[in-house]
């Protein structure tokens, strides 16, 4: 097991290196780079003594863009290994500070939505499979398909219309109320929580469908297997047949995909965060990317790559843990 993990980690490092190289190359060759825009801006300022081209040369040297792709990449990675990710160009503060500021908002949002998703989608999937082709099955399927098909902005807008405009329960967007500073700590917590309700609902609604269908399919497969018939022939109560025998075996694929999606909790949700003006990582990285902020984007995408690789590793390990038939050696 240990050998397997070490081997996987070593392979992951190689993959990571090439992922970063590709990302750096892409960012470096963006047609509207941050440096170019800065140069043009500075040149049009009143009192500027240099032309845009002159500014560009100067800024290129300043930002380290004059070295070419490969040398530039090695400079970046040399610094990154030392733990120095540089300053964000767009946010003008160290990348890690900016990241730290926004990541936790995204994380709380993701965790809450993930937990809700699990506790809603899996029971629904089990019920739908238990009563295949019944009215319950069809209604669950239709509702979940609607959830999958609706665009995020549509769900968010409808939620805003109902709960903010008509009912006035939550504020339409933002993370804090206007009187945030004057509240006690407990009140502050509830204030932020109430702002998070609608984004969480949005994320949950759009993600339930997939997991529910996945649960249903796997559950159906298990329910049609011979050992379920054995369990029934034993004279076990139906509740035990479903919970003890069928669901246990359905858990194997479920745990695997859920384990794999754990790192995704840090990924942020760009559209939802933007719509509800929540300062999360999705929102921040989007702005960094469109403005060509190489240090921030590099850090963010490397982070994502590490998480994805880690997710796959977790999924494989969990698979061995939950399924007695799988022994990795």
């Amino acid at each position, binding site marked *: 097991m240990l050998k397997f993990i070490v081997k996987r980690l070593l392979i992951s490092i190689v993959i990571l290196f090439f992922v970063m190289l590709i990302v750096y190359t892409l960012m470096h060759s963006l047609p509207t780079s941050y440096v170019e825009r800065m140069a043009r801006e500075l040149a049009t300022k009143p009192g500027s003594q240099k032309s845009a081209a002159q500014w560009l040369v100067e800024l290129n040297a300043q930002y380290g863009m004059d070295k070419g792709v490969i040398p530039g990449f090695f400079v970046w990675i040399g610094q990154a290994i030392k733990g120095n990710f540089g300053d964000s160009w767009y946010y003008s503060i160290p990348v890690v500070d900016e990241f730290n500021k926004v990541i936790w908002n995204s994380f709380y949002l993701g965790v809450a939505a993930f937990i809700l998703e699990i506790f809603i989608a899996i029971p629904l999937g089990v019920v739908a499979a238990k009563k295949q082709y019944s009215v319950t099955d069809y209604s669950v399927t239709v509702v979940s398909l609607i959830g999958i098909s609706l665009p995020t902005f549509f769900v968010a807008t409808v939620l805003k219309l109902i709960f903010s405009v008509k009912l006035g329960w939550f504020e339409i967007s933002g993370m804090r109320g206007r009187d945030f500073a004057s509240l006690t700590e407990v009140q502050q917590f509830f204030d932020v929580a109430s702002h998070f309700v609608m984004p969480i609902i949005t994320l949950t609604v759009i993600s339930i469908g997939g997991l529910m269908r996945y649960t249903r399919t796997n559950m159906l497969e298990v329910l049609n297997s*011979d*050992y379920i*018939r*054995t369990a029934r*022939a*034993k*004279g076990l109560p139906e509740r035990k047949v479903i919970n*003890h*025998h069928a669901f246990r075996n359905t858990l194997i694929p479920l745990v695997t995909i859920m384990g794999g999606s754990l790192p995704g909790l840090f990924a942020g949700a760009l559209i939802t965060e933007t719509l509800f003006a929540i300062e999360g990582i999705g929102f921040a990285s989007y702005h960094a990317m469109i403005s060509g902020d190489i240090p921030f984007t590099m850090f963010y995408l490397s982070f994502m790559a590490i998480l994805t690789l880690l997710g796959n590793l977790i999924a494989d390990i969990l698979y061995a843990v939950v399924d*007695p038939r799988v022994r990795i050696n």
Partner: protein
Amino acid sequence: MKLINQDTFKAFGRKMEKYWTRVGQGFVNAGNNCIRFVSNPKKFVSDYKQKKREMINDIYVPLTHNPENLLEVNALKMYFPIKQGFFKRTVGYVKAVDGVTFNIKHGTTMGLVGESGCGKTTVGRTILRLYEKTGGEVLFDGQNINKISKKSLRVKRPQLQIVFQDPYSSLSPRLPVGEIIGEAVREHKIVSPDKYDDYITEIMEACGLREYHKDRYPHEFSGGQRQRICIARALALNPKFIVCDEPVSALDVSIQAQIINLLEDLQKKFGLTYLFISHDLSVVEHISDTVAVMYLGGIVEYAPTVKVFKNPKHPYTQALFSAIPVPDPEVKMKRIILEGSIPSPANPPKGCKFHTRCRECMEICKVNVPRNLEIEPGHFVACHLYDEGAIAENKKLVEKNSATETAPE
């Protein structure tokens, strides 16, 4: 140069025309049904039920219980609906089991043989009510299995057990063996909790398993051992009756013998009654007291084992048994080769179901369903060959046919 082959084009056109005609017909039918339903809903529903009843035709003389018999099966039918179209309307039935009658005495074994797809397994499962029967009745110890409630059926389950055909898929991969065997023992409180561990060990040892196997998972065992686990699982519930659904067909020959001997030993030790489903005739001859031969959902011959093997009466049984190899190179085998394959149970032939492949097919076989005749005490055959009345009728039928053939000239 022609871009499109005219013939293909026309053929496509005809095909589409046919398709649209059918779709149109469907709409007309649906409309008609709607009108009928709206004009007289009660009649519509009763008509529908009547139609279904006609399709199933569940008519039988109720059995009177004979205390000698542990299991009595009477005109048992198991039809699986074929559903089609958007509303999943039942358009027909796969007649997997179509009127099967037999009984098994206490402490004996009945063999059920027949080729693949003739409904043997379905009979076994329907008896245990793993499928809800379509028609007929099953008496277990004088009690109608299909009439008791789900709850009391569950309580009764330990008495009726089954060993499934495939020992690989019939054991839950997530449970250790001790749990597979013992789970239902605890559920039904077969033994008191303090004796539980010893009881499971005892059962496992009776089936040739070791105590240390308890904590292992099914995938760690070989096929033969898994089948032992299946048998131990069934046995642990202290059953009276076990359906052995091809328990050895997934195993190699040396293991087969072990399992068969195990089953026989257990029968002697615990006084069990078996329904032994198999397509292996030599195994059936070895283990059974009586044998029933199935063809396309029905029993064609039913008799004590010796009688069936020495003196098969039904043409199908004769053909089937002529395939048993004789361990003597001097003997020339007279194999009867059946032509064609087993007809679809969704649309079985009229009259005798076997007439399409029978060597001795008569005119009457194509029209009338043969009666179940007792030609010797305990030896039942469903064939017109042994029915004098049917042979007489056959003569008339042949004369009538030849008359109609020559008449119009």
